[in-house]
């Protein structure tokens, strides 16, 4: 029994990790209708930043804000050029642009940070275990579950419950109306991209404690994030959380019972979801024409 409890916790921590990978992507997609495939690069960048930050001896808890700020700064630069002129374009053009950029970033990071696998020097405080019904469970995983959960709540609150979130949502529906209210839509989009990039970096900083950081992680994360966000349905933040939980639990428990077929099962279930619900798990109901 306690065995399944811990495996459930494992599934939960992996789900939260998946959610963390998807947060930034989900934000720009659901709020600004912008597909940002450089998201995996932000994630890896955040991981590298955190690793070097702690490696340099700076206070560990500042590594996460540092990753947020640096990734966000890159987001700000990208927003100036070339993202800005692609906000009103089709998804296809956005996919192409940002995928191309992610290829460039992957190479730049390999150049700058080297090709070696690196792992986060986790602080002593987070390195221990707690005993769950007699079985050990790493504190770092609890840390990820708690901080990921808190982040998700904060985002949900900011988007659904604050004026700022309402403004961004309104931008997507009708930029003109928002501008007549005296808000600068261009600036709102900038803020959205910067926060999304920062979230990518923050996710990477947290995730590098579990995943390590190495060239190619950006692409793996991008794939998972895209899967999670798209299967969740582009309309809502709740969908992303739901599909992260689905993918996390399916993957974890297929590893428990059928480790050889873990990938196949996860892919199969995601495909089935998209076949049954072609617009993802959570869809805004709309009149078709």
């Amino acid at each position, binding site marked *: 029994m306690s*065995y399944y409890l*811990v*495996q459930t916790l*494992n*599934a939960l*921590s*992996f789900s939260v*990790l998946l959610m963390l990978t998807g947060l930034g992507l989900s934000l720009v997609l659901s709020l600004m209708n912008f597909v940002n495939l450089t998201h995996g690069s932000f994630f890896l960048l955040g991981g590298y930043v955190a690793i070097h930050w702690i490696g340099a001896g700076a206070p560990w808890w500042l590594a996460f804000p540092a990753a947020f700020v640096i990734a966000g700064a890159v987001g700000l630069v990208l927003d100036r050029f070339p993202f800005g002129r692609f906000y009103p374009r089709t998804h296809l053009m956005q996919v192409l642009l940002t995928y191309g950029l992610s290829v460039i970033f992957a*190479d730049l990071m*390999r150049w700058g940070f*080297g*090709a*070696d*696998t*690196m*792992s986060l*020097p986790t602080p002593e405080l987070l*390195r221990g*275990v707690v005993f769950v019904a007699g*079985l*050990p*469970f*790493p504190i*770092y*995983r609890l840390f990820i579950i708690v901080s990921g959960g808190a982040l998700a709540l904060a985002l949900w609150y900011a988007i659904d419950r604050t004026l700022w979130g309402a403004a961004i949502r309104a931008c997507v529906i009708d930029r003109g109306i928002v501008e007549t209210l005296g808000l600068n839509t261009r600036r709102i989009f900038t803020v959205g991209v910067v926060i999304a990039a920062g979230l990518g970096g923050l996710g990477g900083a947290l995730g590098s404690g*579990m*995943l*390590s950081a*190495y*060239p*190619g*992680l950006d692409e*793996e994360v991008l794939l*998972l994030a895209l899967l999670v966000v798209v299967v969740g349905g582009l309309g809502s933040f709740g969908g992303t959380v739901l599909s992260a939980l689905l993918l996390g639990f399916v*993957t*974890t*428990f297929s*590893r*428990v019972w059928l*480790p*050889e077929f*873990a*990938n196949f099962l996860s892919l199969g279930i995601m495909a089935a979801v998209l076949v049954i619900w072609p617009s993802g798990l959570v869809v805004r109901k709309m009149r078709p024409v």
Partner: protein
Amino acid sequence: MTFSESRLMTSTSITRRQLLAASAASALGLGLMRPVRAAGGETPIKIALITSLSGPFAALGESMRAGLELLILESGGKMGGRQVTLLVEDDQGKPDEAVRKVRKLLSQDKVDVLCGVISAAVALAIRDIVADAKALTFISIAAANGLAREASSPYIFRPTKTSWMLGHTGALWTYDKIAKEGGITLGSDYAAGREYVGDFINTYRQQGGKLGQQLWTPLGTADFAPIVMNLAALSPAFVYAFFPGADAVRFLQQVRDFKLQDKIRVIGPGALFDQEDVLPAAGDAGLGGVNTYHQSPGAPASAEFAALYQKVRNRLPGEASTSTYATGQVIRAGIEAVAGDIAQKDKLKERLLSAPVSTALGPMRFDSRNNQAILDIYVNEVRRGQDGKPFNTVVHTYPAIQDPGPKA
């Protein structure tokens, strides 16, 4: 021999970029693309290193290049009295791309010697091409058993291990020193993992050992926790495991995170605890691990190379750098035997088959049946080194391990 770091930085061997500039200049001058003539009036010997500078094995590729450049530099840029040109080609870890590169090297660059190759898939993919062209080829990393067996070829040498050599010795050591039953295996579910683990199981059973479950996980597993929990639940006497690169780091760290590092003995082929590729990232999570490998920075044979490498790259060498350096030593020995006349392939081959070459991996003989190196295999245990960091310490040596070869 000592080298100053600055010299290494400034004057590596002639690289392709310089070659390009030179050929462009000669093309302008003569209106033709012709091979560069070195100062001595002779065309240089062209050695091509096929490795991954992008893709999943990029870190290994950089180490390999560093290892080979070091050897060429150490040889004064010459082998058998002739200048040596090194061409490095990126295969991205993709067989399709490697095949393209090899054809280009043979057909356009007209290289004399091919070496390198990390992935077994790449090695097998280029096998027919180099065999058809009768091109001298030295495989530095790829361990696929098949290349010592049905896919061996008269001009393909492998101055490195086969999967069997590591799996087999791993089983001998485990059976003798660790446990005769109650162990399990856990492998990355692709060709290399299947070979290492399969060879381990065969020998272990032949010895009379009894094994429990065999677990497989997909290549590129992000979260090992569910499997680690299964390990905890099974609490086996040992686990024989194989994962490459980042997977190895994650596995070892997650075993540590769940506080199982002291409870479960982890044994594997050397790549699981590679000194350069895995241990720096895995850190203390690697401590206590046992592996069988043809390479160890602590082995006497590689002491000199290890010191040199550490001076140049500020890190201890792992398999990739050492094996490629050793490959260079083998190539050099062959070229010296023909005094630089690389066209005498059979004489060169005869030299390598007739007497051992002294390399950073130890004395290396070649099996005349399949050109496969016969090597000492070290049993390394990861302990704290002099600087307190994890270090592959040699605890035993199985001398002259020979792959069963074509008859297997």
